[in-house]
């Protein structure tokens, strides 16, 4: 299939992106010109503040000995975010999740593309409120647990509607300096 041959030229990266999204999309042998469109989506937004990349000054004289060792720069987005399209930020108010190292004023990184499972920390809508809790789902019991002994579990009974909004995959915070 000629489409696959075209893909090979782009190396491993393309295949990794495809498995990451569990794409069921077929590849109808696109021409090479078609490829970028379909693939750029993994990171539609470039980092707003990439670290300066080209710090080694070009000079006419002796070439920099560091030039061969240059690696890519570190991007905090890449560290915190797996899937920008499905990622949203939520600041935290309250103390009930301290045991999970989530503190008042932290900003949560929430990824909707992850299916919530038992044990995940989630943002959930219950009773008209936005909450952050640990999801318990075992043996027919559904509950939202706090990570602080002062706070009781919130049992999800019949008649109480729970919307699991997204899975918390990280957090960040700035200090006043």
């Amino acid at each position, binding site marked *: 299939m000629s489409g696959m041959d075209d893909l090979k030229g782009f190396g491993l990266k393309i295949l990794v992106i495809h498995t990451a999204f569990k*794409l069921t*999309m077929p590849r*109808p042998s696109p021409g090479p010109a078609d490829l970028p*469109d379909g693939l750029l989506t993994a990171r539609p937004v470039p980092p707003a503040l990439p670290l300066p990349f080209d710090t080694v000054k070009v000079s006419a004289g002796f070439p920099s000995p560091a030039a061969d060792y240059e690696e890519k720069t570190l991007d905090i987005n890449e560290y915190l975010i797996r899937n920008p399209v499905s990622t949203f930020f939520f600041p935290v108010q*309250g103390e009930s999740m301290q045991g999970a190292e989530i503190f008042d004023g932290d900003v949560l990184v929430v990824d909707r593309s992850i299916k919530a499972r038992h044990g995940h920390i989630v943002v959930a809508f219950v009773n*008209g409120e936005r909450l952050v809790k640990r999801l318990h789902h075992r043996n027919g019991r559904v509950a939202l647990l*706090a990570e602080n002994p002062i706070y009781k579990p919130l049992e999800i009974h019949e008649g109480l509607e729970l919307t699991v909004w997204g899975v918390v995959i990280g957090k960040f915070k700035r200090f006043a300096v």
Partner: protein
Amino acid sequence: MPIFALYDINNCYASAEKLFSPKLKDRPVVVLSSNDGCVVARSAEAKALKVPMGIPWFKMLDLARQHGIVALSSNYELYGDLSNRVVSVLRQFTPHLEVYSIDESFLSLDGFSHLDLEDYGRAIREQVLQWVGLPGCVGIGLSKTQAKLANFLAKKGLAGSDGVCNLLSMPSSLLDDLLGRIEVAEVWGVGRKIDAQLQSMGITTVKDLRDADPSMIRQRFSVVLERTVRELNGVSCLELEEFAPDKKQIMVSRSFGQYAYSFSELSDAVATYTSRAAEKLRSQDSMATALLVFIETNYFRQDEPQYHNSFRLTFPEATSDTRELVQYALEALRRIYRRGYGFKKCGVMLTEIRPKEAVQASLFSPAPGESRSDKIMSLMDDINGKWGRGAIRVAAVSAEHPWAMRRERKSPNYTTRWDELPVVLAK
């Protein structure tokens, strides 16, 4: 054989509002136009209460109180961000896509016919719903017009299942029956005027139009409607427009939150709109040779003195320089401004726009692309891009706009501003 799918977000604005506000769950929600005037979007609950589209908010206050209808100002920042995310998800399902509007995109499914297209449509819907949180419908057909029609059928629950309708797999007897029951006005491109004419000819349903003689339609109406007939028959005439063509006109106009009476208030507004239009002009690397300024009093208050006028001005040379454009715009405003009226709306339209490379330089001006003006303007755009619109501006634009758009019921910019992110409670 080309195959098109149309993805459409259900009740886009209302769904976007509900996504972040748990208090809005199951409640009827309407979103109002700029200056909180008329209903431009309704949630499913509001539709069930038969809130008509376009009704002025003040006329439905009783109904709103009775049913607890929540009204919100348009939050274009939020809708825009979510719409971009939806498009990113859709792009994973096709190499060719046309963003048709804030809530609609056409996807080319050429070469996908070996798949179960209903399943594929469902996968698209589910992926958008899970990743971005907005519900939508998918219509599939052999032309854009068919895809649009299929989407309508899916949305109304008339055909297909789970919000997906595929005309390709529908038995023709069933399709005939269905299209015979849908008014011709629902067809993409059939406006009110054409609808009235069609009705008078006895073409009242979609089926009637589909089965009409194309050459007769061409004679009586236009090539455009003839194309619509062919498209309804599954012959694709409208291609996917993946790249929006550069605009030939750039218009910036808005209604004021409160009346503007004085020349200085109006000139402030005109200068602001001109600056915005100039930014758009430069972002597509074009220059304009003419502009039009218009001002209007409040048409809906016939008890108040009425005045509206416009003035068109052609420049000696094409330009994209905000400073020059603002001067021209203010000159145009001076010609039409009258004292003693409460103005409700004004606007600026740049016309005769051409790509920068195509503009002929005059004998005495430097070649475009290397002038001082270009450098200043690109610096201005950079600064405003970084520090926010209006950080640097021409002196005719003031920092505060008393006439600015009223959006008193706007929800926070949940996804685009650090200080307006939605708080979650750890309690």
